[in-house]
């Protein structure tokens, strides 16, 4: 193997340890130097690509799967009952289109979601200016929601996120009371609204039903979160007749 071929193979598959490559590595100074340079580059590459992983990622995946499974198990008898009602009912009410999530499930989900990436997303949005209004509206338009300009001006970050019933939106707002996290859950209805959910790290979530689905507002304990949640809900408009 000549030096050029040796370098090509180091660039293509640096981990190759065939007898041919091992022999080449030991066949002269230029080969050894090329191998050393390749090893050094691969070490830097590994450092660069191995980005930090969220704390306890595997455990949060396992927990979510367990919650999802438990939720389905509880939902199954309800679905059977609903199917029986549907068989005889003529009218399907809008309430039936939005299966209510039990408060236990919702509390678990919001606590899980906050622990998953709440503080991290909040930290990442710190110091950011207003999020691109088009991008914010684009995310919310997926769920047939529009945001009033006053609220739009407070948005620092928006992303899609998991909810107990499919995708929703995770939003960070810069309010007069400080940074606030908002989860919009378009297909989740609360059995009793509003509801207060204490979280770790001195945070509190207030969840309430809105015209379509529900939202949870997370702020530091001590902030008037219920009022904040009502004010945010007031500034959301829902496209009529849209099913999601």
């Amino acid at each position, binding site marked *: 193997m000549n030096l050029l071929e040796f370098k090509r193979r180091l660039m293509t598959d640096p981990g190759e340890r065939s007898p041919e490559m091992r022999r080449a590595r030991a066949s002269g100074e230029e080969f050894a130097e090329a191998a050393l340079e390749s090893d050094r580059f691969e070490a830097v590459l590994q450092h660069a690509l191995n*980005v930090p992983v969220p704390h306890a990622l595997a455990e949060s995946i396992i927990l979510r799967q367990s919650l999802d499974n438990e939720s389905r198990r509880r939902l199954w008898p309800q679905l059977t009952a609903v199917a029986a009602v549907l068989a005889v009912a003529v009218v399907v009410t809008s309430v039936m289109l939005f299966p209510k999530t039990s408060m236990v499930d919702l509390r678990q989900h919001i606590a899980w979601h906050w622990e998953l990436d709440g503080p991290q997303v909040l930290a990442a949005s710190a110091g950011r200016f207003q999020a691109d209004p088009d991008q914010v509206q684009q995310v919310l338009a997926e769920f047939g929601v529009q945001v009033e300009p006053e609220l739009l001006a407070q948005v620092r970050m928006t*992303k899609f996120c998991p909810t107990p019933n499919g995708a929703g939106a995770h939003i960070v707002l810069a309010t007069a009371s400080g940074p606030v996290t908002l989860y919009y859950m378009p297909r989740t209805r609360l059995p009793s609204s509003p509801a207060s959910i204490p979280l770790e790290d001195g945070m509190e979530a207030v969840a309430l039903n809105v015209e379509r689905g529900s939202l949870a507002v997370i702020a530091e304990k001590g902030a008037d979160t219920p009022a904040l949640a009502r004010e945010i809900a007031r500034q959301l408009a829902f496209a009529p007749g849209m099913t999601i």
Partner: protein
Amino acid sequence: MKDAERKRRFDALARQYSDDLFRFGVWLCGDHALANDLVQETFMRAWKALDSLKDAGAAKSWLITILRREYARTFERKVPPITDIDNVVVAEESEQTPEDRTERDLLRKAMLELERKYSEPLVLQAVMGLSIAEIAAQLELTESAVMTRVFRAREKLKDKLQPPERGGNIHELA
């Protein structure tokens, strides 16, 4: 498969592969938070389809396939144009020297600028530990095409890393 066995198998997969899949996801979508959601959704789909995984040795490729499909199906259109390394790395403690950190950050920035056709096979090789043949199967390419792409990927990264006067070495090979 019994429920308990199924659950044990799923938990083992999550513990073994979630970190590497997250890293692969980060370089695929260029966003830390989105990669987290992507991996979560990947495992939810994996749970539903777990009975279809017959060969435990194929688990890694199987999960990568689910993640790539999930990305194409749901996430790809939601990824904002990423130019900021802060979206990729949220916070990191390091024992490296400042020089090493500079080199690492340069390389991360260069990775974000790489076209996906170059970055994806490289990450599959360097992070997920797939062989050229496995990458070829995953990306539905020939092995020689994969070799060309990982070669070019490294070449482009080295170009960004090396001072201009040393940048010519690798070009001789192209």
